[in-house]
């Protein structure tokens, strides 16, 4: 079969690594990797004014960066309406406008430079949605008095009472069905599975009672329910507690399937899920709960919401597209930093939504980079990556310069021993290696060139 000539051959000859700007303002430093808890805004605040054009960054684009930051903060501040309020109070006409904006922006900076764990993000999202709509209630094992098996529902029982925060017995089929029935009537349940491995006991209700009802009833019976909980591998929990269900649920029409990565994702997507009139499967990750991410004031606002079905470009690049979701986004970003040092510019897409899948964003990215690596934690066969690869082959075939690559969990039940477990899930070096293969940079191929 004739292979299409590569559209652009990227010549990277070990030139100096180009630091990358993330779309939320973070920049990877020379130290390598982008730590999730640090952010340029925080560092800027501590070391020097971010509006100072002589900002000390080891980036050739220092001044561009600070100007960028200025406008980022201005935009953030304005979103709060802070700008308008401050200007109104203090009379901007008495100041130089730019000076006024600097003060306001720095105030906004000090209030917006916050870090939040994913756990707190989920908790606050649940709290706000329960406060806003009395029809929202939470049901699951240990969600009430135990404060949540992973403390996601901490404090909700005290605040909303036992009628809205219900401790269920260990009967997933029963309480998932009760949740769906309550949704039929018009309530908005949030059903927690302690992990999604246990959702298999209730999967008939998720698929047959929830996902299909609106269609079978031709719109009479809608099901505004959210099924949430940790999905995928934890650490050392063995085969029955480590499966990722994104591909299974993502296959089913009538469901929406979301996979947050950062705290912003967690807040925005959970709020969107609770407000959505359709059944949503919300796949969290236990190992991300304790991770801290920067959140802007916009994210902290109680009206904040992210659109369902839209992916996020976490890192812009031009040589290879790496798609990932949930914990793997962090790995993909780390891989991107390593690749950058070797002169490969990776574009990392945080899928955020498995169903609907943002095929437009994925294809647009691949048409730009001409190479694709999909990353997921789950089993490879019929996985999310398989669907992405098929979509790209169907819609962007002529744009591909290399075979599509899939990185996934190993095709085995999850072993317990630490060394085997490590081999059973994707590691950063796996992603790096696959990306290099798409760039014809792997050492094995070099010998035959």
């Amino acid at each position: 079969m004739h292979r299409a000539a590569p559209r652009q051959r990227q010549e990277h000859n070990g030139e100096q690594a180009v630091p990358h700007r993330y779309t939320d303002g973070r920049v990877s430093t020379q130290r390598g990797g982008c730590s999730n808890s640090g952010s340029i805004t925080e560092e800027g605040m501590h070391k020097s004014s971010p509006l100072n054009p002589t900002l000390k960054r080891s980036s050739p684009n220092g001044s561009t960066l600070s100007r960028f930051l200025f406008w980022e903060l201005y935009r953030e501040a304005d979103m709060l309406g802070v700008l308008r309020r401050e200007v109104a109070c203090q009379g901007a006409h008495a100041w130089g406008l730019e000076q006024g904006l600097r003060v306001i922006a720095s105030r906004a900076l000090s209030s917006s430079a916050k870090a939040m764990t994913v756990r707190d993000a989920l908790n606050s999202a649940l709290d706000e949605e329960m406060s806003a709509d009395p029809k929202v209630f939470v049901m699951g094992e240990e969600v009430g008095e135990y404060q949540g098996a992973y403390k996601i529902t901490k404090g909700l029982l005290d605040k909303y009472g036992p009628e809205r925060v219900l401790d269920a017995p260990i009967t997933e089929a029963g309480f998932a069905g009760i949740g769906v029935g309550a949704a039929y009537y018009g309530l908005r349940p949030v059903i927690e599975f302690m992990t999604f491995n246990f959702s298999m006991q209730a999967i008939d209700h998720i698929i047959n009672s929830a996902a299909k009802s609106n269609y079978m009833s031709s719109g009479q019976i809608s099901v505004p329910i959210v099924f949430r909980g940790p999905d995928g591998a934890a650490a050392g929990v063995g085969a029955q507690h480590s499966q990722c269900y994104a591909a299974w649920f993502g296959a089913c029409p009538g469901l929406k399937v979301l996979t947050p990565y950062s705290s912003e994702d967690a807040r925005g997507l959970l709020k969107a899920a609770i407000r959505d009139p359709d059944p949503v499967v919300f796949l969290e990750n236990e190992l991300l709960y304790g991770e801290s991410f920067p959140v802007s004031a916009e994210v902290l606002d109680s009206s904040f919401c992210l659109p369902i079905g839209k992916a996020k470009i976490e890192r812009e690049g031009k040589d290879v597209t790496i798609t990932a979701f949930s914990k793997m986004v962090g790995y993909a970003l780390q891989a991107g930093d390593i690749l950058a040092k070797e002169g490969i510019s990776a574009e990392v897409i945080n899928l955020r939504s498995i169903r609907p899948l943002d095929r437009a964003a994925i294809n647009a990215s691949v048409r730009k980079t001409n190479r694709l690596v999909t990353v997921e934690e789950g089993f490879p066969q019929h996985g999310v990556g398989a669907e992405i690869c098929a979509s790209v082959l169907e819609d962007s075939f002529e744009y591909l310069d290399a075979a599509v690559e899939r990185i996934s969990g190993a095709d085995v039940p999850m072993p317990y021993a630490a060394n085997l477990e490590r081999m059973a899930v994707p590691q950063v070096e796996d992603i790096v290696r696959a990306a290099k293969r798409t760039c014809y940079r792997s050492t094995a191929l070099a010998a035959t060139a």
Partner: protein
Amino acid sequence: MALTRRSLHLHLIRPIFSARLLTTASTSPISIETSLPFTAHNIDPPSRSVQTSPHELLSFFRDMVLMRRMEIASDSLYKAKLIRGFCHLYDGQEAVAIGMEAAITRKDCIITAYRDHCLYLGRGGTLVEAFAELMGRNGGCSKGKGGSMHFYKKDAGFYGGHGIVGAQIPLGCGLAFAQKYSKDDSVSFMMYGDGAANQGQLFEALNMAALWDLPAILVCENNHYGMGTAEWRAAKSPAYFKRGDYVPGLKVDGMDALAVKQACKFAKEHALKNGPIILEMDTYRYHGHSMSDPGSTYRTRDEISGIRQERDPVERVRKLILAHDLATEKEMKDTEKEVRKEVDEAIAKAKEMPSPDPSELFTNVYVKGLGVEAFGADRKELRAVLP
């Protein structure tokens, strides 16, 4: 035309003889004894003496005849291949649907499995919508997209129509949960068969209903056969009304509409105050499990005809009407003829309706489609944007 309501306002287009029969029927109370006493578990049974009225008895008769005729007509339509797939018929069990409706309001919820045609009618569904749905036409109650097992009427508290045996019980407990949460002062009836009575999720849901005092009434329509398996071959204990253990139960003659009415009224009062209760309706289906099942390989024809002669619910009400001099034989025969005509007209009307438009393949997948794409079998040929 829908079933008779308990009001005296009837359509003026009703033929004179039947209209006279029902409009002039009085609502003055009559007290009638149920044929059998109730058997109770962990509760004191209600009285055998049921309050009814001439109007109610006559409407019982008409409505059950209508249901019977609809099911028999569906049998013919299925054999004529106008109904496809599954078709589970309710004839023989009409008294359960009718008696229940007489005891409750439309604010109470009913949810059942796949033997749902008559319950749909009882909740106010029309014959035309029922037949159109069975034949997959766009005028059906689910616009032709559900089929026999997926009839719904949410505005009248009818939540389907479910194909998965036993799933409707946790769903029904969920409805009860929502009613209690919303302080609606209403109850949910979840119907299931002797086959579903062994499902684990029933006990999971019942446990939670009892823990949380939900206004849930579990109604086991025990027609003694779970598909082809007799109850004694499937259940170690076929005393389904006792299977709730700590949950009280009542065994009812399900072929006696008045007994059903009394039991449901009693159960509703109980559930609103004390939480769940189980009703076991001792009933019988004349047809097989579905139209694919002749119904005679696992039971004798003598058994079927014996029940028809001795326990038929329609005949029981007919005898009551005659015994209390509420109508003549001829008047009742005329009612039956009129019902038959009504059913035939509904079928004719439903047959004229078109199939759903091809664009309906992609509607109602979501309430909020977000403009995403959905695909047909050949995605390069058939794609749609979900609204």
